[in-house]
């Protein structure tokens, strides 16, 4: 079975400071990993994804994440945050199922990033 653990439910940080949002996964098979962001009163938007290849993945809005197979982690980072980065962030592991060959995401519980001026 696959699962995703986001270790911090809430991360407060000052504007222009660096931030890391932690994500660990468990899976017995090859994984595809995504990070999504949800701004207040909106749906989820894709930040970045890891499928294979380079373990450092760059996404939108200056975010990046590093896939670490030995530590089964996919932590999200940004060197300098803005007030506008205040949002909920979700890590997801994608599994392929037999039905129609579809890919199904399993999401973590989310991390609320709160950027203070």
């Amino acid at each position, binding site marked *: 079975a696959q699962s995703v653990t986001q270790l911090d439910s809430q991360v407060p940080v000052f504007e222009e400071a660096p931030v890391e949002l932690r994500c660990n996964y468990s899976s017995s098979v090859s994984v*595809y990993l995504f990070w999504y962001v949800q701004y207040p009163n909106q*749906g*989820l*938007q894709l930040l970045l994804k890891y499928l294979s290849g380079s373990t450092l993945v760059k996404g939108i809005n200056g975010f990046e994440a590093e896939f670490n197979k030995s530590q089964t982690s996919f932590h999200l980072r940004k060197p300098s945050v803005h007030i506008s980065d205040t949002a909920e962030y979700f890590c997801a592991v994608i599994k392929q199922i037999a039905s129609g060959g*579809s890919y*199904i995401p399993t*999401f973590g*519980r989310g991390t609320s990033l709160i950027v203070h001026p």
Partner: protein
Amino acid sequence: DVKVTQSSRYLVKRTGEKVFLECVQDMDHENMFWYRQDPGLGLRLIYFSYDVKMKEKGDIPEGYSVSREKKERFSLILESASTNQTSMYLCASSRPIQGYGYTFGSGTRLTVV
């Protein structure tokens, strides 16, 4: 701009009512999903569909059913709404392709009183 549209942003229903939540996508995606989002629990999969008239249960299907008569439309049905179904409901769509992203609607906040 491609879209997943959920028909209602806010909905208030009474206990025992039959409730329909509608989702429409304009991207010709094969796969569609219904999640509920609750504070501290993240997104939990209720049902998904990988083709017209095809559906699979997710992690929390109890109390829900779905309908997919057309490729672009995926409906979530609460046969008899209960207060513990008060939640944010998110619809998403995708293609059955490795690494393809998921496009989400803006959500329907359902309150059952």
